[in-house]
């Protein structure tokens, strides 16, 4: 495990589950989707991320301290979620620790939930979702489920590390990306990515509440989005817009 990052288990986390990541990123798609999963499936906190390299920050829930990066479990999934953006220089150590922890739990697949920003998002009637995978076999799972493949391009952020490491270890990993706003919280995109998750796993949740409460979620997510914007700029997230020059 990464030297300076510890995954502290409060309860025994299940083995052989699907490990899902929901971190703050474009449109907060992953975080909003993860929060909805915790709420709808009644997932319980089983572990948290501890590191002296992280800012001295805790999240208070009902007067009690919690790590901002926690792991929830239930319904055959293990869900890693962060309520604050991961500092750019901590992405590798934290993701390495989480991936290593997941491998020690023999997770059957790792799935990152995130977004892919589009211009004139507010004019989009239907949002599309895309997938990228760590191997051709895993990519086939997404294709066979009717999810469009993100054929070329750059990926920046925690989900990039997951695919890179999973590919190296030969572990199955998928990234699901829903079209979204870049700088504004996007509950509709979170609903879309959860629909894609339901296609590739047995994790099926009703997204009606997410859509119904969309405006309130946007309001509550305002400050996390603002902090995330700053971190995305540090990690040069805009590179995802670049025209790729693929060397074959």
């Amino acid at each position: 495990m990464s030297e300076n990052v510890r995954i502290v288990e409060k309860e025994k986390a299940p083995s052989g589950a699907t490990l899902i990541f929901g971190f703050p990123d474009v449109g907060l798609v992953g975080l909003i989707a993860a929060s909805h999963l915790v709420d709808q499936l009644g997932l319980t906190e089983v572990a948290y991320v501890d590191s002296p390299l992280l800012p001295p920050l805790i999240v208070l829930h009902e007067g009690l301290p919690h790590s901002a990066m926690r792991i929830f479990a239930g319904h055959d999934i293990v869900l890693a979620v962060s309520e604050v953006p991961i500092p750019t220089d901590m992405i590798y150590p934290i993701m390495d620790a989480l991936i290593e922890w997941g491998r020690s739990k023999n997770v059957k697949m790792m799935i990152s939930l995130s977004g892919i920003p589009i211009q004139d998002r507010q004019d989009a009637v239907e949002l599309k979702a895309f997938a990228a995978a760590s191997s051709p076999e895993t990519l086939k799972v997404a294709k066979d489920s009717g999810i469009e493949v993100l054929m070329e391009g750059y990926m920046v952020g925690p989900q990039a590390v997951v695919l890179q490491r999973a590919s190296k270890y030969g572990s199955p990993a998928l990234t699901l990306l829903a079209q979204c706003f870049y700088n504004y919280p996007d509950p509709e995109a979170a609903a879309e990515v959860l629909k894609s998750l339901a296609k590739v796993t047995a994790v099926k949740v009703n997204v009606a509440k997410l859509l119904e409460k969309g405006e309130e979620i946007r309001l509550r997510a305002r400050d996390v989005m603002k902090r995330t914007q700053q971190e995305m700029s540090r990690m040069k997230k805009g590179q995802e817009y670049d025209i790729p020059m693929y060397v074959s």
Partner: protein
Amino acid sequence: MLEKKKRRSFDFIDAYFEDFERWVERMDEMFTQKPCWNLRNCTMEPLREINMTATEVIVTADLPLTEESTVQVRPIDNSLEISAKMRRKLRLHELGISQYQGEIEKFRCHVHIPVPVNMDKMGIKYKKGILEVHLPRKR
């Protein structure tokens, strides 16, 4: 000798840009260390973005829980004042803030427009709670 001199000049430019980047970061941090809400006038600053193309400046703002009829965009010199009334008053504890008491009923912010524009040719669009203001650039 000439090459050495050149290298020194490039080092100077690099150092200048590094200093500038640090300054921008510091300013950024400084201006974000305040709450987005103001209890005195019951307002919240919306998330907003400014984009520039060759022909126009596009300002967008995220205004959830608002009605289009209450949105106001007022040009003031080289900036825009954006405001919009929320459909209902929101108590801070509804937003998960329990250490302060108060209500938010309006979005309000000022957006500085960094290049000359024709304010009188401003175009406004509002969809799904996203305000979009188009300002043609002066030539």
